[in-house]
């Protein structure tokens, strides 16, 4: 089942009167439970494409449909609401809320969505267990390692069962061991939760684990390799 449809999407920045085609006519589909990665050299348009998929930026032309909903047709407030309910984000720099504990960070999106406490607690417990950090539930981010923080960020991204998770270079700041652990956890959750994961990365370990590798160059898809 198609979760995302990208149809002839262009993103052109008009900085200093010189047009920059960050995304240059991309057409792609993502299916449910895919574990896909977008690779390419710096400036190839990976992050811009991820921002467009996440509704953080709007295409200059073309359409991005999530479950049939055209993101560019949504008003600003509706788009924020749509993001909250359908898209999970994992950032390179973890970006947890520093004043909240691990548990509170995970349940944050569920609170915004007004989940009842019992369900929230249950889901938080499940996810903390899945990422192997049940015992750190009451720790604040500053007391955790980078790898642990990123695992909490993954748990937060998955908390409200989004349609897909966008991860922008999630292993870039992690050591090898932490990166491997994180990727294993994300692979497991992708399998268990049937949630689509889309990464932008330079990390060969991520590429190695991905079921699909999309390569971008100059804003265009130059290859789209699906692995069995």
């Amino acid at each position, binding site marked *: 089942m198609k979760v995302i449809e990208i149809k002839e999407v262009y993103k052109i920045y008009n900085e200093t009167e010189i047009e920059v085609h960050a995304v240059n006519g991309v057409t792609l589909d993502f299916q449910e439970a895919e574990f896909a990665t977008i690779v390419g050299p710096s400036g190839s348009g990976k992050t811009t494409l991820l*921002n467009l998929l*996440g509704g*953080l*930026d709007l295409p200059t032309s073309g359409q991005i449909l999530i479950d049939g909903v055209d993101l560019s047709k949504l008003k600003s*407030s509706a788009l*924020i*609401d749509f*993001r*909250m*309910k359908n*898209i*999970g*984000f994992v*950032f390179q*720099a973890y*970006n947890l*809320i*520093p*004043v*909240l504990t691990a548990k509170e960070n995970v349940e*944050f*999106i569920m*609170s*915004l969505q007004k989940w009842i406490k019992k369900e929230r607690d249950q889901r938080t417990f499940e996810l903390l267990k899945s990422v192997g950090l049940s015992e750190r539930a009451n720790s604040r981010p500053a007391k955790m390692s980078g790898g642990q923080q990123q695992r909490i960020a993954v748990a*937060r991204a998955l908390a409200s069962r989004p349609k897909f998770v966008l991860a922008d270079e999630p292993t870039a700041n992690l050591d090898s061991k932490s990166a491997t652990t994180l990727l294993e956890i994300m692979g497991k959750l992708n399998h268990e939760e049937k949630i689509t994961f889309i990464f932008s990365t330079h990390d060969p370990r991520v590429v190695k684990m991905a079921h699909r590798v999309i390569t971008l160059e100059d804003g265009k898809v130059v290859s789209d390799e699906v692995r069995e």
Partner: protein
Amino acid sequence: MITAIAWKNVWRNKTRSLIVISAVAIGVFAGVFTMAAINSSIIQRIDAAVNEELSHIQVNNKDFRSSNDIQNIIKDFPSVMSALRSITGVKDVTGRIIIKGIVSTSAKSTGVEINGINVEKEKKIFTLEKKLIPGTGSYFNEKSKYNTVFIGEKLAKELNIIRYIISPEALSALKNEKIPAAVISKLEPLYDQRFTSDKKFSKAFQNFLTPKEFIKYGMKIKEAAWSYREGSKIILSFLDMNNMQTGAAFRVAGIFRTNNDMFETVSLFVPIEELRTLTGMKEGTFHRAIALLDNNELTNEITPKIRAALPEYEVLNWKEIQPDLAMIADFMEQIYGIFMGIILLALAFGIVNTMLMAVLERTKELGMLMAIGMNRRKIFSMIMLESVFLSIVGGFAGMIISAVVIGITGKTGINLVKYSEGMEAFGYTAHLFPAIDVPFFITTTILIVLTGIFSSIYPARKALKLNPVEAIRTE
């Protein structure tokens, strides 16, 4: 959740938040305490004016105040009294004979207003009886074969009835007050000398003391040296009903002390019968009817009613008799508004500055929150709540400090002895008892919360303008 995050965010940078909270607390305390002190001074002045000098409402013959002619009496006094009594809210009434005259002793003569009073009635309306200086006699309690008069301390000093002598009694009083023997011995050159005024005496003993000793013990030395000759005689001269010069010797029955030098100097009181005998004014004739109301708040409401009931007389309430005092009382609210406005504006700038710094520091985090789906309303609420928490914590701290300090100083008082001469010349006490009412605290609390909300608007708008994509990239 938003409230919890906002509260936790306040304590993210403890030092900065504590500085802002302290600034808010100090600002609120400064504002509230100053207002309490000024307020108490004005309330004390109004209370004194109403209870000692004027009462709430006065009724005169229309020409009386302009001419001061003894002939300008209230023609039908019983009707005036019954009209006053019939109005709801009028608690008690009395009448006075008021004559301009001259008081003289061997030392000095001065112009005065002689008030002929019904002593028993006056006790119910005025509190002047309680202002009697202990040891100077009584408020006409003792029967005397002489004419008697109740005069102010300031007038008594002017007439040389009161003087300052470092007598053996004064020395023993100073010892009882635990004034150091070294200080007492410095006063030796002044022993038994007679000083006719406060000023002259102060100047004399100041020369023998250090400035510190003068400030610390000056008041006590003056109190101890204060001396009064019982039954002093004064001469009152005035015109009688036939416009003939008349007068008589009066014994000082007692001396009162208020905070109003002018009142003490100008007004003196004699039993009305004595004045009737001397002026030839008939029984039942008065120059002024005086009405005490159930409470001061009724003044504006009842004045027009009395005016309507007594159109042929001049009806004035205390605010009209002393418009300066009424203006100050009314002006107080505006002063409060301006004063608190300035303080709150300063606080608002402090909070805006702090919150702008907080938004700037948390650009990346705010971008992340927007990205993961925290809507504008919630972002705005979070920033606003942080400002409100800062204001409320600081505001409450300020209020608690104010309440405690006002509570303590309200009992002990603040003695501005240094400025007593100037303040008392205008009728204000130099011994302040700061007081503030509950509505003032409530209004101030509301204003502080509003300041918090107002201060959050600009930083919150800044936060809302962030582009999540760019904000997340911020280092």
